[in-house]
């Protein structure tokens, strides 16, 4: 439906005064103005402001100093930590989510199992942040239930053997609680999209179950899996509240560093803050864009 056609149609129907087509176009655009105004003022504007600020120094002149300062050892370490944690978390979530989805949807289990997991995943994927941190402290913290049970029932001293909830791996475990469900929710429809006929066609052509997965099933799923991985990566990268509630400000992932910059109000270099923000937006933007591209590719195949 072109704008022209709609404009003409409205002209014919509306009993009001006849306006030239140019006027009608303006009218139409006006309708979405509040939305764009709001988005610009409170979303795009602030972000652009930060992006611009990243390339300015304290006097407002154009400079690359802030970008270069991103290369300082602290900041690099911070980004490295964030990226490594996000990659690990995404990998864990992707693998476990796929295995769970495969088991629940294609594994011959009753339908209610799938429904239960889907419902729970809807909740769990939103249960990030402070309460999640509390829950894991109560479970695997030094006095957590599981820690105590392992010690009292099985004689395994968790913390003595090197495990620490408030560490890199501990965090990745906590992240898993919302990453696994997210992966499950997104990959489930993709598994549904694996047509039964493909498996049957492969089988009748002589393929074993393993060969089907290797030659047809996994290749078809790969764009979706990769896309999900990126989504999980971005999801982990932007997480702040969970980390803060769990390990306080001691764990220097990028969101925390920025948080501290803002919080401390010791922005002795606000422009560095801008650069950090820019770095975050770029990373999130790239991974989400790739996710969308991969998702489109997957949809095209499964048409």
């Amino acid at each position, binding site marked *: 439906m072109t704008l022209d056609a709609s404009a003409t149609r409205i002209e014919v129907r509306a009993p009001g005064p006849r306006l030239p087509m140019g006027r009608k176009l303006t009218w139409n655009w006006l309708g979405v103005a509040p939305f764009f105004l709001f988005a610009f003022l409170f979303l795009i504007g602030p972000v652009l402001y930060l992006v611009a600020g990243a390339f300015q120094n304290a006097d407002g002149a154009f400079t690359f100093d802030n970008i270069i300062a991103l290369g300082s050892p602290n900041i690099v370490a911070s980004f490295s930590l964030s990226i490594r944690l996000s990659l690990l978390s995404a990998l864990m979530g992707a693998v476990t989510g796929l295995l769970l989805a495969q088991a629940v949807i294609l594994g011959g289990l009753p339908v209610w199992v799938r429904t239960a997991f889907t419902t729970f995943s809807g909740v769990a994927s939103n249960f990030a942040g402070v309460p999640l941190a509390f829950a894991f402290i109560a479970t695997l913290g030094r006095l957590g239930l599981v820690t105590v049970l392992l010690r009292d029932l099985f004689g395994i001293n968790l913390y003595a053997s090197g495990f620490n909830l408030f560490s890199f791996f501990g965090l990745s475990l906590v992240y898993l609680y919302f990453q696994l469900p997210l992966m499950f929710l997104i990959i489930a429809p993709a598994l549904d999209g694996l047509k039964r006929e493909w498996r049957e066609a492969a089988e009748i052509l002589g393929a074993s179950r393993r060969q089907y997965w290797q030659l047809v099933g996994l290749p078809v799923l790969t764009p979706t899996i990769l896309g999900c991985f990126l989504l999980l990566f971005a999801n982990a990268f932007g997480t702040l509240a969970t980390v803060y509630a769990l390990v306080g400000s001691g764990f220097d992932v990028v969101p925390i560093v920025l948080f501290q910059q803002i919080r401390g109000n010791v922005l002795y270099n606000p422009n560095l803050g801008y650069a950090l923000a820019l770095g975050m937006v770029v990373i999130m*933007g790239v991974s989400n864009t790739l996710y969308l591209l991969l998702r489109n590719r997957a949809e095209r195949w499964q048409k």
Partner: protein
Amino acid sequence: MKTRFPLAAVLTALFAASFFIVPLIATFYFSLKMTRGELGFAAYASVFNSAAFLNTILYSTVASLIAILIGAIIIVPTAYWVRLKVPKLRPVVEFVSLLPLIVPPVVLVFGYIRLFGSNSWLPLTASTFGTDILLVVGYVVLSMPYMFRAVDNGMAAIDITTLTEAAESLGASRLRTITAVIFPNVRAAIISGAFLTFSISLGEFVLASLLNRPAFGPYLVQLGQDRAYEPAALAIMSFGFTWGCMVLMQLFATRKPGQRWLPRLFTRPAQRS
């Protein structure tokens, strides 16, 4: 086809289920241990008796509700307009509505503080009220992707274009069409989006903390640093709350327009004359 017992699948499902449930059980158990030596709900009582809890919950609730309202007011007409008048702009609107997903809250609030700071062109952060506005606006922005998708799906399901044409061909004005025809039919979708927004906004931490507002999120973190058992109780309550919101969100998302709330208890025979 032989029916083998799906051992691998069962084990996987059990493993995943325990991973999900054990923390909840542990937290619940932990929350009952406040009174030394016995299991009781002392932690919960302590939470509910705390003024800080009540105040912050109230504050966050109000902020969330206002955010839902503003969100609905901005998004519903936009979604309607885009479907009806300017479908060409649809990809743009959709893209913008998804942008909040790539802007982490910490970046967003940083932008607010700089752009609307004390010595900026619109010093919202200079006043408490202004900061409150920023917080609410922030919630609207964070919930935009979900709100837009919920409303958009709801409108897609009822073919808004045809409904509008039908209403107009029967003589209704645009406003009348919106209030009498469109809105009732997307009401459920809006409520569905509202529950999701509510669930996101209530315990939100980053925005509230950096804008220094007495919301529930920062209260939770503070409590986590000060107390041991109350946080566990709050975690359980929070989980239950999220669950409730999700259930209601689903319920409203799948409601057909005009579906009854309660089952028909008495059937009235159709009037003959």
